[in-house]
C-alpha cells in the first residue's frame, strides 16, 4: 500500500523537560484502519495534533505523501490532507448554523462557492444531517454534534482521517451508527486512525493497533499479536477483548472479530460431529 504519513523520531513537549511524546517513529498507509490505544496521558491526542499539523515537532520530522513537512506551506498541505476530529465537539463547532459550520473548512480551501455548496450538501447527506442544516450546532445533542464534526472534516476531503475518542460521549445506538459511518469511509478508501479506550471496538474494527505508553510507542502491530501479549496490555492498564478471550478459550482459528463470527464458528463445530 502507498504510504501517506510517516513520523521519524518525533518528540514533543508542552512544557520544557516533560516530553509528552518521545522518539515516535511510525507510518500510516492509504486505506488503513488503525486503532490507537493507551491510558490517559499516554500521548494519543498529542500524536493526533502533530499528525494534523496543529503542533510542530520539537525534534524529528513528519513526512506527508513523500515530502517532509518543514515550512509553513508544508504545514498547510498537511492540514488539508489530514482531517482531525476533536474529542470534544464543542471545541470544534464554530458557526451559527450547521451548514455554515460545514462550509468553514471548504471555504478555507478557497474553493469556488458552487463547489463549497456541493461539498456541504454531500457531507450533510452522508451524515444524515440535511434536516438539521439550519439548526444551531451548539444546541444539538452529543451524537448529532459528533456527526456535524465528522461532516465538517470530511467536507474538506482529506486522505487521512484522525478521530480522537469518537465514541466518548455516545450512547450504544449512536456508537453503532458511528461504526457504520467508519465502515463506509473505509470503503471509500480513506485511511482511518481512531484513538479509543475500548479494546472490544479495536478488536472488532482495526486492522492494526498502536499502543502508547507514557509518551512512547510501546507496540505497533496486528491486533492478534498485540492482544495476545497480556503483560504488555497490563502495563498499559488494558485488558484483552472479550471476543478474543472467548475465541482463545474455544480454540477457534481464526479468532472471531464479531459476535456473528463467533456464533457461526461455534455453530459449525456443533454441527460437524
Amino acid at each position, binding site marked *: 500500500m502507498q504510504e501517506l504519513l510517516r513520523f521519524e523520531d518525533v518528540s514533543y513537549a508542552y512544557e520544557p523537560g516533560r516530553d509528552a511524546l518521545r522518539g515516535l517513529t511510525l507510518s500510516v498507509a492509504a486505506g488503513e484502519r488503525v486503532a490507537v490505544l493507551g491510558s490517559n496521558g499516554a500521548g494519543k491526542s498529542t500524536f493526533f*495534533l502533530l499528525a*494534523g*499539523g*496543529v*503542533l510542530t515537532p520539537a525534534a524529528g520530522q513528519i513526512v506527508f505523501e513523500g515530502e517532509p513537512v518543514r515550512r509553513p506551506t508544508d504545514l*498547510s498541505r498537511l*492540514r*488539508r490532507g489530514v*482531517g*482531525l476530529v*476533536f474529542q*470534544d465537539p*464543542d*471545541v*470544534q463547532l*464554530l*458557526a*451559527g*448554523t450547521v*451548514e*455554515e*459550520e460545514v*462550509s*468553514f*473548512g*471548504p*471555504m*478555507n*480551501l478557497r474553493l469556488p*462557492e458552487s463547489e*463549497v*455548496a456541493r461539498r*456541504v450538501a454531500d457531507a450533510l447527506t452522508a451524515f444524515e444531517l440535511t434536516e438539521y442544516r*439550519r*439548526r*444551531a450546532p*451548539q*444546541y444539538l445533542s452529543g451524537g448529532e454534534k459528533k456527526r456535524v464534526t465528522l461532516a*465538517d*472534516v470530511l467536507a*474538506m476531503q482529506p486522505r487521512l482521517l484522525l478521530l480522537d475518542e469518537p465514541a466518548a460521549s455516545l450512547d450504544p445506538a449512536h456508537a453503532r451508527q458511528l461504526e457504520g459511518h467508519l465502515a463506509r469511509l473505509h470503503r471509500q478508501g480513506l485511511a482511518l486512525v481512531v484513538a479509543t479506550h475500548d479494546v472490544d471496538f479495536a478488536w472488532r474494527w482495526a486492522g492494526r493497533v498502536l499502543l502508547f505508553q507514557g509518551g512512547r510507542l510501546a507496540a505497533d502491530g496486528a491486533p492478534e499479536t498485540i492482544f495476545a501479549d497480556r503483560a504488555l496490555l497490563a502495563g498499559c492498564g488494558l485488558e484483552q477483548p472479550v471476543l478474543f478471550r472467548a475465541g482463545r478459550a474455544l480454540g477457534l482459528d481464526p479468532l472471531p472479530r464479531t459476535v456473528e463470527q463467533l456464533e457461526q464458528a461455534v455453530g459449525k463445530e456443533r454441527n460437524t460431529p
Partner: protein
Amino acid sequence: MRGKILNIEPLSLLTGALAALVGWSLLAGSLPRPWPAALALALGLALALGGHSHGSAVQIDRLAHASRWADMNAALKTLGCCGLLVLTLCCRTPWPPLGVFVYTAALCMAGGAGVRRYLGLMALPAAFVLLSAAALLWRWAPAPGGLADLPLAGGWLVLDAASQALARLVLARALGALGCLYLLSLSTPLPELLAVLRQAHAPALLLDLAVLIYRYIFLMLDTAARMRVAAASRLGYEGAGRSLRTTGLVYANLLGRSFARARACQQAMESRGWEGQIRFLTRRHPVRAGHIALFAAPAAALLAALALGG
C-alpha cells in the same frame, strides 16, 4: 422551598418596584385618582413576574434562530430596524415612539418570542431605563409645590409637570429604540448580522473578533455552568458563606479554564485550514415585498407623525 409560580428573583423584584414607582410618577395628575396607582402596580407586577432570565445571551440566540423572521433578508431587517430607530429618536411627543414599541413588540411575538420571555429579556435594560426616568422625574427642592411631594432630609422630593413631560418623552423614545433593537436581535442570528456588516465592508478584523466573542460567550457560559453544577453536587452552595466562597472560586478559575478552551478551539480552527480570516458560506434570503412593507408602513406613519408636529 420557593413555589414554582412565585419564583421571583431579587433583580426582577427591584425592577418591578421601580417600574411601579416610575409608572405612578408618570401618570400622577393626568388620570383620576385610583388609576395611576392601579396601572403602576400592574406594570410593576408584570415586570417582576416576567422575571429576569439567566444566560440571556443564550436565550436571545435561541429565539433568533427559531424566529419566524429568521428567513427575512438580514440586510433588510438591519436597515429597517435602524431606520425606525432613527425616526423614533426624532420624535418630539411620546405617542409615536410608544407606537413603535408596541409594533416591534408585536412583530417579535408574531415571530415566536413569548410574552413572558420578551418581558424577561426586557427586565435588564428596563432597570437602567427606569432608574434614569426616576432621576428625571423627581428632583430635590427646599419647598414642596409639585404634583406630588415627599419629605426628605430637611427638604422635599418634588414631582412637577415639566419634568413629568420630559420623562414621558425620554422613556417613550428609549422604549421605542429598545423595541427596534430587540426586533433585530430576536429575529436575526448574529452570524447573519455579521454577514451584513461584511457586505457593508466593515473592517474584517472587527468582524472576526465579533465571531470569536460570540463563540466564547457560549464557551464561557457553558464552562461556568458546568463548574457551578460540579460545585453544587459537592455541596458548595450550602449556606451563604460557603456559597459566596464557591462563587468566588468558580469565577477565579473560569478565566484559566476558558483560556485553555480557547487555545483548543484555535487548534481546531487551524486544523481545518483557518489562516486568519473566518469565512462561512452564508445562505442568501431574497428581499420580499411583504417584508419591505413591514418596515415601510411604520416608517411612513412615523414620518407623517413627524410632519404633523409629533
